[in-house]
């Protein structure tokens, strides 16, 4: 080769110098479990669907929710959002309004008529689901998408279970419920209403089913003995809410006392207000911090004028009055009577002291255990009887719609595996993306978009929905507040900040790779990754 005067060597490239040999530790891309995903009782990939929604991919985001939960629009209204309690952004400024975005996506799906396909080949296996509540419908949905033939049987004359008969329509409008339930039925789920199952084994054998999922819920209002005069008017909250849902509300009078401290008590008191009661008083035997009702339900009830009497029990009910005894908490936090009494005006007393499970349909099934009123199941949600699974309110767990939907998802996977003669193996759990794993310097301050609310005054006059939805612009903004904890969102920090050009950008959606020929292992990419998706690992010697 011809070289210029006084030049004896060609120009060489430093690429010949593999500086990767200096390294004692190597950076590695990881995925961590976002705290919202860990907290979700329905097992949703929340961080994943927010990622889809951030660039306007609403359909993809919705489909990602639907992979785990068939009720996005319902969830967006009535879920108690443990995801937002767990959200790392709450430590930074305010939690991401995950629930609002989910509702936006759910409403968008109903408005646009989005549906999901059944891609699996028909298996020819038949499953009976008893109970058309959230757990039963969720199971039916997932099993159908897995190719099984599902029949849902329910004693009621409309599907939805507690979503219809326990949750007032000011929290969950019936059009939304009907739309999301209808979408499941359209997949080919057979629904048999008005058919009570009294003996599960007989029902299985008569129908020729291969497996059964039980989700009859906890329908019976728990009774407590209250000495009552002949003319005292006492209702239980479950029946009250059911009658309201059926459009046949009872006459409650002007002064209503609700006994209990759970979400049902709040719903009963708020419904009483809407039915014309001027006074709705909740009597609860412990203190606010021990109350089982969700804080948001309590806050909304108080805002509507519901009054709570803490540390109180009802000791007697008569016509027009109840006698209330004051309580005090002992060292163990248990309420003890004080002997101080007070009289309250009450036209009606509503008991909201919990609900019991009617497990009589399992009486003839061998091997099924019932403990403290709830049906015992394994981690696979199977009862002691082979092929009989159970979930929702009738098994020991939190009694929320979201938990029930999660049971449905889990049960469907176990039933599917059981039908194929194997055992379902859940994916290994990733390490949690803690707040300390993040580098929050990179996230701009942005407050949570507050959902518009009906005026408090307007709220109690009827049963219209009280929490509005987000419009597209604010939903997009809210989705973009997600920190993407523990999962790469392609911010290019590692690619841009590597002093050695040792990060290869693989293009949109494909993230990055390290070029270990040149990576010196300085760790800048780990220190500056906003979401904690890179870790250092010792180099093999």
């Amino acid at each position, binding site marked *: 080769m011809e070289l210029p005067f006084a030049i004896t060597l060609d120009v060489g490239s430093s690429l010949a110098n593999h500086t990767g040999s200096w390294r004692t530790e190597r950076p590695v891309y990881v995925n961590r479990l976002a705290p919202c995903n860990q907290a979700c009782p329905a097992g949703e990939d929340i961080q994943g669907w927010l990622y889809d929604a951030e660039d306007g991919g609403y359909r993809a985001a919705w489909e990602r929710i639907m992979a785990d939960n068939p009720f996005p629009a319902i969830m967006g209204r009535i879920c108690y959002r443990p995801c937002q309690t767990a959200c790392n952004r709450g430590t930074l400024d305010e939690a991401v309004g995950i629930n609002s975005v989910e509702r936006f996506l759910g409403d968008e799906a109903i408005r646009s008529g989005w549906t999901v396909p059944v891609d699996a080949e028909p298996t020819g296996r038949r499953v009976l689901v008893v109970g058309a509540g959230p757990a039963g419908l969720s199971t039916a949905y997932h099993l159908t998408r897995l190719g099984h033939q599902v029949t849902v049987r329910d004693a009621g004359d409309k599907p939805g279970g507690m979503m219809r008969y326990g949750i007032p329509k000011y929290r969950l409008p019936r059009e939304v419920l009907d739309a999301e339930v209808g979408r499941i039925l359209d997949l080919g789920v057979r629904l048999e209403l008005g058919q009570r199952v009294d003996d599960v084994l007989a029902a299985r054998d008569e129908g020729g089913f291969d497996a059964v999922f039980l989700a009859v819920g906890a329908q019976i209002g728990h009774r407590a003995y209250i000495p009552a005069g002949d003319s005292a008017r006492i209702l239980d909250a479950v029946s009250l809410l059911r009658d309201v849902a059926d459009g046949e509300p009872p006459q409650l009078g002007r002064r209503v006392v609700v006994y209990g401290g759970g979400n049902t008590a709040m719903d009963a008191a708020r419904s009483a207000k809407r039915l014309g009661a001027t006074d709705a008083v909740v009597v609860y035997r412990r203190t606010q911090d021990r109350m089982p009702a969700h804080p948001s339900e309590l806050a909304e009830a108080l805002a509507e004028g519901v009054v709570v009497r803490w540390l109180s029990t009802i000791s007697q009910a008569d016509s027009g009055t109840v006698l209330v005894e004051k309580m005090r908490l002992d060292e163990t936090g248990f309420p003890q009577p004080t002997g101080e009494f007070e009289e309250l005006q009450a036209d009606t007393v509503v008991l909201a002291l919990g609900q019991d499970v009617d497990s009589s349909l399992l009486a003839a099934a061998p091997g099924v255990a019932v403990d403290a009123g709830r049906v015992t199941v394994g981690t696979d949600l199977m009862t002691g009887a082979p092929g009989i699974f159970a979930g929702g309110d009738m098994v020991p767990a939190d009694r929320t719609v979201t938990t029930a939907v999660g049971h449905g998802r889990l049960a469907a996977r176990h039933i599917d595996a059981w039908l194929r003669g194997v055992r379902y193996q859940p994916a290994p759990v990733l390490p949690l993306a803690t707040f300390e794993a993040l580098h929050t310097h990179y996230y701009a301050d942005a407050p949570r978009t507050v959902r518009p609310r009906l005026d408090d005054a307007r709220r109690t006059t009827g049963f219209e929905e009280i929490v509005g939805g987000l419009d597209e612009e604010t939903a997009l903004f809210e989705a973009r507040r997600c*920190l993407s904890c523990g999962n790469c969102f392609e*911010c*290019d920090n590692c*690619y841009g900040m590597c002093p050695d050009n040792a990060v290869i950008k693989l293009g949109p959606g494909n993230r990055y790779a390290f070029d270990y020929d040149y990576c010196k292992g*300085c*760790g*800048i990419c780990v220190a500056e990754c906003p979401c904690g998706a890179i870790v250092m690992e010792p180099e093999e010697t």
Partner: protein
Amino acid sequence: MPVQPIKFYQSGSFVVGNRLLDPDQRSVQADPNRTNSLNSGHRACQGCGEALGARYALDAAMRATNNQLIAVNATGCLEVFSTPYPETSWQIPWLHSLFGNAPAVSTGVAAALKAKGRTDVRVVGQGGDGGTVDIGFACLSGMFERNDDVLYICYDNEAYMNTGVQRSGSTPPAATTMTTQAVGPEPGNRFGQGKNVPLIAMAHEIPYVATATVADLRDLEYKVRRAMEFRGARYLHVFVPCPLGWGTASCDTIRIARLAVHTGLFPVFEAEHGEVVDVTRIPRQVPVAEYLRPQRRYRHLFGASPRPDVVARIQQIADRNIRRFGLLAAEPAPTAQEAP
């Protein structure tokens, strides 16, 4: 603001890229087709701030000049670690002569281009603080005074690192180097010495003077782009932490640079024709101890026999910078109404 702030795109203005931004709004470094002026295989230490700053600046200059660029390099780390004969990491036309003459060589290259009528080709001179603040300073001042058409970039790591960490005119007070040991009543480098070359450059009333750090890429790239919009002498002073010389963890390079800005010790500003036209505001002032403590060169101020009096004097320097450049003027907090 010199740089348009990016709000509510999941992450803000300080990340390199952002998939939610239009490609033309992303930084040069986010571009998979960036020049990579300083290629892999260079022999800079792990976590070298200078290697990073030089690639940031020259890639931005390449884009700003449509790849018509010649770089002249003073002796120093940047030259030694990039170009051990016959290999080089530079993927651009690059020239090295001596330690002290890089501004003068740049002047010569610019003059030659002018003689050839090549007004499209631009010249960048670059060096460390030793080659700029001390050894090359006469040539630099002459280049400014003649208003030669050169952008000179100083990568300031506050000592002679290539030869083993000796004190330079840019070494800050109290910092230890091989030649300013932590002994005596005033350990480390003395107070009241050194020189602030950005302010001296401004005193030459050249068209453009700016400071930047490796912690704010968008700001640095903006300043290179802006500098290339002027003809005549321009000066860019880039703060580049040195893990070896400062005794910091190699992974902390960006964080240390960020702290230098957030404490007020390194004011980030730009000036045109001798007047400051903009400063980068500090979101929340950080005490200087947070910047000093992670650095081994300040270890003698903490630990068994701490010197809070010395830390307080350094704090005074930071406070004075904040007053002098107006670094703390409050910005209104963003509100929901500013959503995109």
